[in-house]
């Protein structure tokens, strides 16, 4: 340290320091208080933990009757836990097995068959007289649970739907109960029961009022194929039933129509709309025409084939084949050139099928081949009773609010919320579009480039507060939209949390929001599994979470800085040497203020683009963080567990070491020998020429060089295969050759000779002459004189190659394929293909740890040299 100044410590200095110390002390106290305050103010989600003794998996979240409480259902024992909305304390539990007990008590063993009494769902029903819960199982049973505010009890009257169907939802309008069920053929049904009729019984008093699947003449119809139309929500109102389907379609069945069906009237209309939506007949008709088209083409193509081929496709086989099978056969005999022609042929077939369908069905007016939709003769329609409307954009979710008589759509295409009033929905006819009547809510949209979450449901409705929860995809944020003022929808809160939301409920004042979320955990053997958790947020406080956190961090940093300064000055007061230092630094800052100012710029760049990345990546390796879900979620070393438990982890480490060893050898030995040979050349002109020429291969960009090796040298048409002749060897795709081929790349490996050459020409010639006189041969001279003298250069190349080799992802990524995976390549893939930055960070940290240990050991082994001298 060449920095010296002659200074004396005076009493005045001590006084100055003392007063500075005092000021710093006060500032420190203030900052400590602020840090503590903001630390406390950072909102934290309250986790709901107490869930059974063996921590059963949460399965679903159910809103309570008035927002004061909510329920969590667990898997396995199917227990309902009731929690207080505000304190998150457990109020009571209800085991669904009590229903089974009740059945046993009654001797009703018929209900205890396999498949039923599991996969429970519960829904709170608001009736005018009483509030009760309906519990329905996967086997088609519905039971009524009475609620006294604290406990649930199985009532004597319980309802039963039909067996062999899974109940997906139910809703009631006064005394009528509507049930959405799905059968084992994955077909959805809506059925209507009268609650008062359905009492106490296994078919005793129950009377099916209306079944959307049954045609009056007894022929079974399937109006909804759920493969085509996943039902997002299902709402029954006094005017009719509204089904909102994924893909942004609404299906309305007017109540008059329902009643008409009950009374056996209006069959045609119903049939018509069924058909529109892919009824059995429609599907069959369509498939028939579709199949016929391909059948014709297949028969035609087959006629030109030889007898052997024809024998493979006997008439029985063709008759029994489905349309898809026919296409396969057609492809097999080479009648269809894939992939382009298949698309066209299919389109053509669809058109043909559509035309045939129009011809056979009088209620069809025309078929639009572009949209592949049927235009239906208006005279067959009654819009007030039956309507199907669609949305051209893609929809992330829809909710229907009975309170507002409005449906809200989260439009994934433009990221806006849309509202459609029920009165407008009723006016819509078959084939009309929501876009025409939907009102874009300008005030509610995602941030630019974002969209609604497609995980679970992008939108949820809080019926107590009449608000919407909107979930966004890229940021884990929730916006709460107030629906009470129809003229002016307003986002009242936006808050962010570390969750992967599954469901939400809230209270009537928006004070708390309960979130059911999914998080991944990784077992010790590396197998990841997802679990559901529930927690409670206070939106009002969470809205300012980022700000509060930042203020906290800044306060914390400032506190630490002030603390260090304070302690230092405090020590200086007692110690003259420190006092002296204080004075020196004071002077230094004054004198070199521009130097420090300039350095601040460089240090900021360094911290921003080097230290922040290094520290950040190491921290991030302990969290789940992906491009689509950029939130830091602690995962209990899950990234590392996953890496270490990979089947090919050891192989990839082995590959890394394999390449490392060969890279080190090949980057040192051949260039050393080459440099030595160059030194030995007597003719300086020749040597000059050779060295100049050695630069020329460097004009090819490194990527081009790699690609030349990949395609031109190792490729199927490459140099090696041309030289060897015979059967093509896939050097890079064959695990026997791949690693060695990668090593051989860059032959004759002398590119890095220059540094050694530079070191060798500086060796005085006298050494060599002396050596020769002592009887050292050329080889001994190389080993005993030249190598020791250029050891610093060799060390440099060693370290650089070491670092470079471990980080060389490009070689294996671009050239390798068979068994050449290395950790750094996995990291690159995690970063690009999987966009899993947490995982990539974990790889990076492992590589860093390896390199750090290796390089630090190396440095330690070397003599401590001064790092440049101070001028």
């Amino acid at each position, binding site marked *: 340290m060449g920095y010296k100044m002659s200074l004396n410590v005076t009493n005045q200095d001590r006084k100055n320091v003392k007063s500075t110390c005092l000021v710093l002390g006060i500032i420190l106290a203030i900052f400590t208080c602020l840090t503590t305050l903001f630390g406390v103010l950072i909102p934290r989600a309250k986790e709901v933990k107490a869930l059974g003794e063996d921590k059963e998996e949460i399965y679903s979240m159910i809103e309570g009757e008035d927002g004061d409480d909510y329920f969590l259902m667990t898997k396995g024992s199917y227990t309902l836990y009731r929690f207080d909305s505000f304190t998150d304390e457990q109020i009571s539990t209800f085991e669904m097995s009590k229903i089974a007990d009740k059945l046993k008590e009654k001797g009703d063993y018929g209900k205890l068959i396999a498949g039923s009494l599991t996969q429970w769902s519960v829904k709170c029903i608001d009736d005018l007289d009483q509030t009760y819960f309906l519990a329905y199982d996967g086997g088609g049973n519905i039971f009524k649970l009475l609620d006294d505010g604290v406990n649930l009890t199985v009532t004597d009257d319980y309802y039963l739907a039909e067996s062999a169907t899974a109940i997906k939802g139910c809703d009631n309008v006064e005394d009528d109960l509507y049930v959405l069920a799905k059968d084992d053929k994955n077909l959805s049904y809506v059925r209507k029961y009268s609650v008062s009729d359905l009492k106490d019984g296994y078919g005793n008093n129950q009377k099916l009022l209306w079944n959307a699947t049954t045609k009056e003449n007894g022929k079974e119809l399937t109006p909804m194929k759920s493969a085509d139309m996943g039902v997002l929500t299902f709402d029954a109102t006094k005017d009719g039933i509204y089904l909102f389907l994924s893909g942004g379609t609404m299906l309305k069945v007017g109540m008059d129509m329902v009643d008409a069906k009950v009374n056996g009237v209006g069959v045609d209309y119903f049939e018509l709309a069924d058909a529109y939506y892919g009824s059995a007949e429609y599907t069959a008709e369509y498939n028939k025409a579709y199949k016929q088209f391909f059948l014709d083409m297949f028969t035609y193509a087959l006629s030109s084939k030889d007898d052997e081929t024809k024998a493979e496709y006997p008439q029985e086989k063709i008759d029994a084949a489905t349309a898809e099978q026919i296409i396969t056969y057609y492809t097999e005999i080479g009648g269809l050139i894939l992939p382009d022609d298949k698309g066209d042929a299919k389109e053509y077939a669809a058109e043909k099928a559509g035309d045939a369908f129009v011809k056979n069905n009088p209620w069809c007016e025309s078929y639009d081949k572009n949209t592949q939709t049927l235009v239906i003769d208006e005279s067959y329609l009654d819009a007030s009773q039956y309507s199907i409307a669609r949305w051209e954009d893609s929809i992330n979710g829809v909710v229907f609010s009975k309170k507002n008589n409005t449906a809200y759509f989260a439009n994934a295409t433009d990221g806006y919320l849309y509202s459609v009033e029920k009165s407008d929905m009723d006016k819509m006819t078959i084939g009309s579009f929501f876009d025409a009547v939907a009102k874009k809510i300008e005030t509610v949209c995602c941030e630019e480039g974002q969209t609604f979450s497609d995980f679970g449901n992008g939108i949820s409705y809080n019926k107590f507060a009449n608000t919407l929860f909107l979930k966004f995809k890229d940021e884990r944020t929730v916006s709460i939209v107030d629906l009470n003022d129809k003229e002016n929808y307003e986002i009242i809160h936006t808050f962010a949390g570390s969750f992967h939301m599954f469901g939400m409920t809230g209270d009537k004042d928006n004070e708390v929001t309960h979130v059911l979320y999914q998080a991944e955990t990784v077992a010790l053997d590396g197998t990841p599994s997802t679990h559901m958790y529930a927690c409670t947020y206070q939106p009002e406080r969470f809205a300012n979470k980022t700000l509060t956190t930042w203020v906290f961090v800044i306060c914390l940093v400032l506190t630490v800085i002030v603390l260090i300064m304070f302690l230092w000055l405090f020590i200086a007061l007692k110690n003259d040497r420190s006092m002296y230092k204080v004075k020196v630094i004071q002077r230094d800052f004054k004198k070199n203020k521009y130097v420090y100012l300039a350095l601040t710029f460089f240090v900021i760049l360094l911290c921003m683009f080097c230290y922040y*990345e290094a520290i950040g990546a190491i921290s991030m390796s302990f969290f789940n963080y992906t491009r689509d879900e950029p939130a830091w979620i602690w995962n209990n070393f899950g990234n590392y567990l996953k890496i270490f438990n990979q089947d090919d982890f050891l192989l990839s480490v082995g590959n890394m070491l394999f390449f490392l060893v060969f890279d080190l050898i090949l980057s040192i030995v051949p260039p050393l020998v080459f440099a030595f040979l160059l030194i030995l050349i007597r003719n300086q002109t020749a040597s000059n020429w050779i060295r100049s020429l050695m630069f020329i291969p460097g004009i090819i960009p490194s990527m*081009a060089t790699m690609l030349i090796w990949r395609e031109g040298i190792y490729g199927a048409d490459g140099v090696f295969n041309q030289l060897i002749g015979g059967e093509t060897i896939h050097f890079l795709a064959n695990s026997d050759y791949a690693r060695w081929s990668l090593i051989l790349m860059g032959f*004759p490996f002398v590119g890095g000779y*220059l540094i050694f050459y530079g070191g060798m020409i500086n060796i005085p010639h006298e050494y060599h002459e002396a050596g020769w006189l002592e009887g050292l041969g050329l080889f001994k001279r190389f080993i005993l004189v030249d190598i020791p003298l250029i050891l610093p250069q060799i060390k440099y190349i060693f370290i650089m190659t070491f670092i470079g080799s471990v980080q060389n992802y490009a070689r294996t990524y671009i050239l390798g394929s068979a068994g050449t995976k290395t950790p750094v390549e996995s990291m690159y893939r995690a970063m690009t293909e999987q966009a899993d930055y947490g995982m990539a960070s974990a790889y990076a940290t492992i590589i860093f740890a390896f*390199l*750090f240990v290796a*390089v630090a050991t190396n440095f330690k082994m070397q003599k401590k040299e001064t*790092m440049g001298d101070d001028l």
Partner: protein
Amino acid sequence: MDMVNVQSQPKSLRKHKLRMPYEANWAQAIIISVVVFCLLFSFLPLFLTIVNAFKTKEQVQVNAFSLPMLSTFAQAAGENFSTAWKVIGPHYFSTIMVALIGAIGQTLISAVLAYILSFKNFYFKDAIFMLFIAILLVPSIIGYPILIPLIRDTFNLGNTHFGFLLPIVGGGQVTGMFLFRTFFSQQPRSLYESAKLDGANDAVIFAKITIPLALPIILYHFVGCFSGIYNEYLWASLILDGDKQTLTNTMYAAVATQDVTYGATYAMYVISSFPLIITVIISMKYFKSGEFAAGLKL
């Protein structure tokens, strides 16, 4: 100055040296043939590139080593180069500009930093120097998972050349600084002292003394930075896309997806080599003696 003197040293020594056995003609012949053999093999990729860029697909398939045939030369070259240019043409000049700007920025920042850390005298010099040097222990690849969200989301510079260059320039100062500092500190102090006495300020000293004296090493670093950015694959593939993509990535994508095959790929490599010719000429001029390379040691 050291580095100028050293170059003439071997010549002056040769005058009175003994004649060694390896200086016999037959021994020299062997040595030169081995060296030339290595040289020829080093030229293999370049040879393949130049020869095959002017051949038709069939000719490349049959024998990659054959020379282009005169009869098909013009037609094959025309086809190959027009196909190649269609793919990489739109990215060509933008990539050169980006690499040029990045290299200038990187070199300039490193030089200024090295100047401060070499000639300025201040209390925390060692500490700050250590702060810069310590980052050399951290492999550059580690930072990307953090860097991507920082550039793309925080700075909102995703898929821009500025966002691409920012971390390269901002984070690439350390290597250059380390290199320059070693060379700056070898410069004669007397020059600086007399300049100071004549009233020159830091900016003048930096521009008129430091830079001219260290021009070869600055050029070396500049050339290295240029080809480094020009050849950059990883970072470009992470942050750039579509029209903004660099030449290297465009080339890789074209070859990987088989959009460009045989002769045209080689034509693509020929076109992409042009900017590096100048860097090679500079390196040749200054570095073939091996003097600078010898300074790279631990």
